[in-house]
């Protein structure tokens, strides 16, 4: 699946997007955050406060307990400040 990062999450990870293949026991958005955090210091820094992170699956907002199976694109970003 493709993972995208925006704003300071993107800056901390150091990537705008990447393709990942998490293990089968990574089932939810929250699991994915935990798995990504274990991949290195940049990820750990980006996801150090998981409650602040917002997520979207295939262009729609989702909660941390949302299932990721079948997702084409998952995005992580800080609370939005548009308008």
């Amino acid at each position, binding site marked *: 699946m493709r993972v995208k990062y*925006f*704003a300071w999450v993107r800056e901390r990870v150091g990537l705008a997007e990447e393709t990942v293949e998490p293990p089968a026991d990574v089932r939810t958005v929250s699991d994915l955050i935990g798995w990504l955090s274990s991949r290195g210091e940049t990820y750990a820094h980006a996801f150090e406060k998981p409650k602040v992170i917002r997520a979207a699956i295939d262009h729609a*907002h989702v909660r941390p307990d949302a299932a990721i199976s079948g997702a084409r694109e998952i*995005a992580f970003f*800080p*609370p*939005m*400040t*548009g*308008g």
Partner: protein
Amino acid sequence: MSVTATIRIQEADFDAAQEIAALTKGRTDIGAVVTFSGICRGSENGEPIAALTLEHYPGMAEAEIGRHADEALSRWPLQGLTIIHRFGRIAPGENIVLVVTASPHRQAAFEAAEFLMDYLKTNAPFWKREESKKGTSWIEARDHDDAAAARWTKS
């Protein structure tokens, strides 16, 4: 007649008067047009800023604003709706966002415009970074914006 919202996510500036004219031209059934323009302030928390840079999530920005536009069209008797949100570098005094609502009477136009702006603030995937003498920093989301959006939730 079903109403289709006009939604544009663009780097270029917009002209509110032109957008109103585009909605109302040749029509005599519209009785009220409300416009909201969001403009870049020259200071943030009392500190002068040089500019804002807006990052957005292409694809999701259109989808998310489209969902809120559809909800506004289903909740209020609107005859026209235009939403424009800019991205990129925006200097103080320049436009950031535009919402135009048209309806037979003013209440629906006012309410729908306010509903849309409250949701754009908290749900549209845009992020503002400010440039000042101290460097650049991401603007933090405000709790009162969440509260403003929450009051439209149907109980």
